[in-house]
């Protein structure tokens, strides 16, 4: 399709029927970008789209890039904290009967490690990457519902602070990251620790649900003219499918944690078998979320891989359609697997067989993806740079994790190694291999876009090899010690079992792996300050985020690009076709149709506002208070209502009125 097709008569809807009649104040027209020279265009847009100066201005920001940067930095800090948890645990386990920490602290440590990595690092960081990249990749100026996006960040931060302040007060949850009843119920978990788990979940899920809705609407309605469904970049597809999985999976864990806190706080009996409840119901509800959660973390990572590979293979991705269908298939299948986390609970055999079959079935679309990536690389002369190295690391580690996954899908083997280090090894191979390695590759790939500076390639290679060796040294032997029978979540073990040497080796690997992140952090900070200037499109990649400057201006694109190909920058090397006619004195962007992305409406995007922060404080305060009394919901309703009214009440900006 050429850009001429898109501008033909049929694409533009008939002259606005709605704005012409009815009791609508006439639009106060303002200056348009048509015919403006580049310098004046930049001046206008920079003034219209800027984040206001000062502290209040910074706290009011609704720029998706500003919010995403905050998300990325916060999630990285939580990664460091969760990593430190792990290092402390590994030092304790490095030899038999070490007395560094006792069982109570150890229980808090492994719970905080899991909770932090899953809810405060992995999900937020993949969503944050999407918040930054999706609007750029679809060629728009901001995410849909920018204030909701800002709100989500503040709720996330308050949830993280809540968990870690509790840890500092020795009040952290100590019931494992999935907090099974009856252990976490009112009878066996007195005090507030399990309540902290339950409400921390509520904070982070509210936040990621909000981001998911904003992402879906951005992809559906804010795509640049011409970006029909078949021209959506694979990374954006991955984030779209992930967001749908979030929408249908996250409510399950909110229901679980709400039921738990009701049982604990007001004496309901939902999980109490003595009064007609059921403890296994908790596991069903939790894993109905918990298994899709794995794919919420993994699918965006596959999107990153699908963005990195074409740039370094110097050719479009092989099997684009197959990859899209695989993403969608994985999204659907991820909801049919949850019971394989519950094989040891004595479920009926037929049910177990069904979930064995579905667990093996999901290997098919994932296999399709792997083969498409390999085929793309096979038929190319890849340029080996750090991002691609991490993609290779991902292949290696993730395939091993996938293989042990297929093993664990079989019930007899699962029963044998249930709750041993074999399982710990498996899910670290899947999660670190499947998500963290692509994420690190993505960091090297997009860091120059975000900061305008290059990361050090030499340090990057050191980082990769340290991480690769450290990771495998730490986690591969866990398979073996797991088969020997070492259970997870024990704070120590006797010397007679002979697990001392292998655990020492594992701990040494863990320290090495940790050091690789120290090197990475140094590279990040050093390159952000001193890195070589990167230019707009240093990898000569083909998607739209590379069409704008590095770092992108507040308005992303001076003129909205028109998309003619799945790799638009490769298809239009001489000059990118762009659309004109938008106002420059207000935050205007294009709303397009869902399937074909025909331009349909010139819509105004929300202006900066402090109210999302205030609303997040009201919501966060209510959640915090609610671990002490159910009346918190009643008292909290008033401040929440007031802040939401303040948020939505028009302030007279053209963005609110027209």
């Amino acid at each position, binding site marked *: 399709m050429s850009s001429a097709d898109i501008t033909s008569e049929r694409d533009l809807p008939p002259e*606005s029927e709605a704005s012409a009649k*009815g009791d609508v104040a006439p639009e106060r027209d303002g200056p348009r970008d048509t015919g403006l020279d580049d310098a004046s265009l930049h001046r206008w847009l920079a003034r219209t789209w800027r984040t206001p100066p000062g502290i209040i201005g910074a706290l009011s920001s609704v720029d998706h890039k500003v919010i995403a940067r905050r998300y990325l930095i916060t999630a990285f800090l939580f990664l460091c904290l969760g990593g430190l948890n792990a290092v402390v645990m590994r030092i304790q386990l490095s030899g038999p009967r070490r007395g560094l920490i006792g069982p109570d602290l150890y229980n808090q440590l492994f719970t905080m490690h899991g909770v932090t990595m899953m809810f405060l690092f992995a999900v937020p960081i993949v969503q944050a990457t999407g918040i930054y990249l999706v609007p750029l990749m679809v060629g728009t100026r901001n995410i849909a519902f920018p204030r909701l996006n800002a709100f989500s960040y503040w709720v996330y931060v308050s949830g993280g602070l809540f968990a870690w302040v509790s840890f500092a007060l020795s009040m952290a949850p100590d019931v494992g990251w999935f907090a099974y009843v009856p252990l976490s119920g009112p009878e066996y978990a007195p005090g507030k620790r399990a309540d902290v788990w339950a409400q921390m979940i509520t904070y982070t899920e509210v936040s990621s649900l909000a981001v998911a809705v904003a992402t879906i609407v951005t992809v559906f309605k804010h795509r640049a003219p011409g970006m029909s469904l078949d021209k959506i970049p694979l990374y954006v597809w991955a984030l779209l499918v992930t967001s749908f999985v979030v929408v249908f999976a996250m409510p399950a864990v909110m229901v679980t944690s709400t039921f738990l806190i009701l049982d604990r706080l007001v004496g*309901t009996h939902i999980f109490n078998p003595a009064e007609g409840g059921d403890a296994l119901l908790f596991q069903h509800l939790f894993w109905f979320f918990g298994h899709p959660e794995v794919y919420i973390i993994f699918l965006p990572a596959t999107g990153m891989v699908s963005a990195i590979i074409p740039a370094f293979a110097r050719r479009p991705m092989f099997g684009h359609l197959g990859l899209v269908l695989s993403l969608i298939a994985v999204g659907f299948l991820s909801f049919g697997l949850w019971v394989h986390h519950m094989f040891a609970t004595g479920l009926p055999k037929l049910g177990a067989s069904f979930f064995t079959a579905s667990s093996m079935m999901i290997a098919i679309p994932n296999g399709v993806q792997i083969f498409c990536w390999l085929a793309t690389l096979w038929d190319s002369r890849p340029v080996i740079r750090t991002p691609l190295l991490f993609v290779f690391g991902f292949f290696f580690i993730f395939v091993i994790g996938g293989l042990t996954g297929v093993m664990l899908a079989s019930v007899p083997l699962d029963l044998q190694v249930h709750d041993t280090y074999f399982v710990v090894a498996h899910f670290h191979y899947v999660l670190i291999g499947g998500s963290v390695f692509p994420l690190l590759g993505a960091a090297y790939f997009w860091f120059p876009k975000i900061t305008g500076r290059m990361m050090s390639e030499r340090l990057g290679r050191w980082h990769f090899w340290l991480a690769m060796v450290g990771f495998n040294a730490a986690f591969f032997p866990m398979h073996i010690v797991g088969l020997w029978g070492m259970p997870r979540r024990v704070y120590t073990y006797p010397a007679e079992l002979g697990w001392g040497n292998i655990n020492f080796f594992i701990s040494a690997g863990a320290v090495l792996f940790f050091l690789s992140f120290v090197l990475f952090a140094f590279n990040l900070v050093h390159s952000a300050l001193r890195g070589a200037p990167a230019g707009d499109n240093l990898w000569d990649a083909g998607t739209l985020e590379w069409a704008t400057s590095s770092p992108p201006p507040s308005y992303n694109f001076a003129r909205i690009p028109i998309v003619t190909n799945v790799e638009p920058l490769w298809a239009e090397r001489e000059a*990118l076709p762009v659309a004109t006619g938008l106002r420059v004195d207000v935050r205007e962007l294009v709303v397009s149709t869902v399937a074909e992305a025909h331009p349909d409406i010139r819509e105004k995007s929300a202006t900066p506002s402090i109210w999302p922060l205030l609303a997040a404080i009201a919501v966060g305060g209510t959640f915090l208070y609610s671990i002490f009394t159910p009346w918190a919901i009643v008292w909290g309703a008033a401040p929440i209502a007031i802040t939401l009214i303040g948020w939505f009440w028009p302030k007279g900006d053209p963005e609110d009125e027209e």
Partner: protein
Amino acid sequence: MNQRPAMDLSGLPTFGHGPRSPTWWGTLGFMALEGTGFALAAGAYLYLATLWPNWRLSAPQPNHWPGTIVTLLLIASLVPNHILNGYAKQCAIGPVRIGMVVMSLLGIAPLVVRWFEFPALNIYWDTNAYGSMLWVLLGLHTTHLITDVGDTIVLTVLMFTHHGYSGRRFGDVGDNVFYWDFVVLTWIPIYLLIYWLPRWG
């Protein structure tokens, strides 16, 4: 990167109703996630109901009349709700203002009757798991109702100010209509689960 203008967007309208508007899709997204929450709560109730052969666990039957009145009120409210939608599409401020007042009142009415529903369940939340689930289901829908009625009242007040003369505001009215349909729709299965399943089961 060099650019060449290839399309003029200046003739596009500045707002649209229904699926043309991003807000409509956002509303749909929130309906999907809230609907999932409801479905899971209902699923939990059915799970427990099938698990225990003597479900209702010797509790007395709930009195369905307050719930039935709420149901009738909610269904009846759909008619003015859709008349209001028609006026919102025409951007007619007078009828929209009247419609919003009517819908606010039709939102408050079931909430008043709802007050009598909780005692009519004839069981407390902490008696047994059956009581817990009834209170959870009714509580979930009540929260839903209160938030939407609050939202409707704020929007009604807004339509009476000068901010009401805006295409975007008429779009908000359309989305409010859409969401009210959802509030009514989610009630029907919950009504059947709370009041009629214990009778059949």
